[in-house]
């Protein structure tokens, strides 16, 4: 049985109200969706709140899932991102960060490649909420600036500017991290 068929069976069982099917869907996708929540949240506890809201939303909208339009995981990820954005908007967490330009000499991709995923996640989580949200949406989740502007109710130029600043801030963090590593390891 392929992935799609398995998902469809689980969804059909869920739509009939089988609690076990809901739990199987949760077990299957909790980790990948939790990674999405971790990127948008500032810590693990907040991410768990996002995940919980995302799954409730997914289960309530299961009858809207159309297998012809894509796989379940992509659909669920989109709902999870929306749940995160909704939470950020509700909590007024999204603010345009007005920090000045961070002067970084180069974007050291090699230094980035050396980082572990957990360290990269920590860097993203430490970004100001505005930078973090736009960076996640544009770079990782594939939103266009137009879509970001629409979702966050900001101008396209603001989205572009914030993204640039987010990149710069991350690059600085990578350099700081590299220097710190060199200092501790000689």
């Amino acid at each position: 049985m392929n992935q799609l068929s398995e998902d469809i069976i689980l969804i059909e069982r869920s739509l009939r109200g089988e609690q076990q099917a809901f739990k199987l869907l949760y077990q299957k996708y909790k980790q990948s969706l939790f990674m999405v929540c971790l990127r948008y949240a500032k810590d693990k506890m907040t991410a768990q709140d996002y995940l919980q809201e995302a799954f409730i939303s997914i289960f309530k909208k299961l009858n809207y899932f159309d297998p012809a339009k894509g796989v379940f995981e992509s659909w669920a990820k989109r709902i999870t991102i929306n749940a995160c954005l909704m939470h950020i908007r509700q909590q007024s967490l999204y603010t345009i960060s007005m920090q000045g330009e961070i002067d970084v000499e180069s974007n050291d991709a090699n230094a980035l490649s050396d980082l572990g995923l957990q360290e990269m996640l920590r860097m993203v989580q430490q970004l100001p909420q505005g930078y973090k949200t736009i960076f996640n949406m544009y770079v990782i989740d594939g939103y266009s600036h137009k879509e970001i502007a629409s979702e966050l109710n900001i101008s396209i130029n603001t989205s572009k500017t914030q993204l640039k600043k987010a990149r710069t801030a991350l690059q600085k963090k990578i350099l700081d991290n590299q220097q710190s590593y060199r200092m501790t390891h000689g």
Partner: protein
Amino acid sequence: MDRFDEIWKNRFNDSKLPAEEWNSPDDDMVWNEIAAGIAPKKDKRKHLFFWWGLGTVVILIVFALLLGKNSTSSTEPKPEKPTKQMQLSTVENTTNKLTELNKNTTKSKESPTGKVIAQTNKDAFPKLATQMPVNRETVKQLARNGNMPARVLPETTQEITTKNTTLLNSSKEAMILKTEAPIKKTTSALTLKQASTTGFLKSQEVLKSTNTELTPMKLDRISSLALAPVSYEDEVPPVLREAFNFPELLPTSNKSNPFRLAFSAGMIYWKHRISDQYTSDLAAFDFNYTDNYAWQANVQLSYAFNAYLSAFTGIQYEQVRSASGHNSNLKYDVLNEQDASNAYTQNLATPYGLSEANFRLNRQRAVNGDEIDLLVDFESRHLIHNWSMPIGLQVFPLGKNSKWKPYTSVALGVNYLAKITNTIHQIGSSHDAIQYENSGSESFAQPDIQNWHFDLRLGLGLSYEVFPSLSVGMNYDWSRGLNPIYQVENINPEQQNYETRIDRHHLSISIIKTLGN
């Protein structure tokens, strides 16, 4: 996107991460919350709307009754319910009054006091209006003094002969003539009129010869007197009405049957009111829908409390057709086709939620490739059958005395959406070799609608009285849907639910028949 971005994207989108403590949620905590969140809730909304609707109806009815009661009680003191003892007492009074009147009538024959009396202002007897029941001595005294007004005492014997003496009594004071006080008349006829709570008894010609004696009527026969409305205002002077405790004259409109039956038919415009959230959810399908005109028929029964206020209810049937459409990406699988066609099961977006449809796409000719991507446009039609029962009030600001009667109305509409029949009207594929052919085997599930819903109606109308018991009218109603016909609860309680409500514009012409006339 540069390499920097790509590294971030690839690392975070790698779904095959080993589960570790930092990237795994606390299952016990998270799952328990999710399970609680998706547990089926008892839908109290339907009950809420039912009680809300019932409460509104009760308030409307109470309001209407109070208005109707006030309009009559303001002009007429409520008569006391008579006991048998009271009836006998009243009869005695009445008989004595009649005797006194009779004597004075005879006196007037001897002296021309009637001429003087004719000029006497009836306002000279203010006491009579407040003395209820009438003191027989008062009447007697007034008569002796010659202060009885001309409208009470006939001017001459000749007048008595031509006009007939009229004995009057209210129904509450059941009239029984006493044997020990016979009334002798020298006039040609004596007519009794009996008032009743429902109108006035037709004249009962009891005597038609001179020197006839009135005989008592038994109490139990009073109820058998023929009841029919009769106007007495021209024959009964106000002072006598007061003296004999007559009820006030009823408004002209109340003489007719207060029930009216109206048959109407006309146009109705259904306007879907779909929540933004719902629309944006369906926007992914390029969802669209149409509002539409339709027809309606209505039978309405109304009850007039007075000339200005009526309550009404009825039954209305509406048949509405609407259309909706959206598009989907489908794949045509050449290798797994049956009879050069593929079968599909697809959720189609409608204003009444997603509804599952089964259909087939046929391959008309050979195509390149085993699998063809299609962008398919769906167009669906919906036939809606709705029954409704308006319950409300009509206000006639100008009363009902003229032939033209403008009115305004307010009502609560209790609707039962009996059925929505969906049909696939057209499916357009982006590939000229793959076409939809309506084979009649398509099925389209009925959406999960809320059958019961309510609306608030405000109306304006104008009727014209063609005959006393028949009118024609024209009416416009605007109605606002109070609860949705389709609803899916939003997971976020702070956001709007996905729902469709219906607002309506009614325009109808009607034939109105007064019952019993």
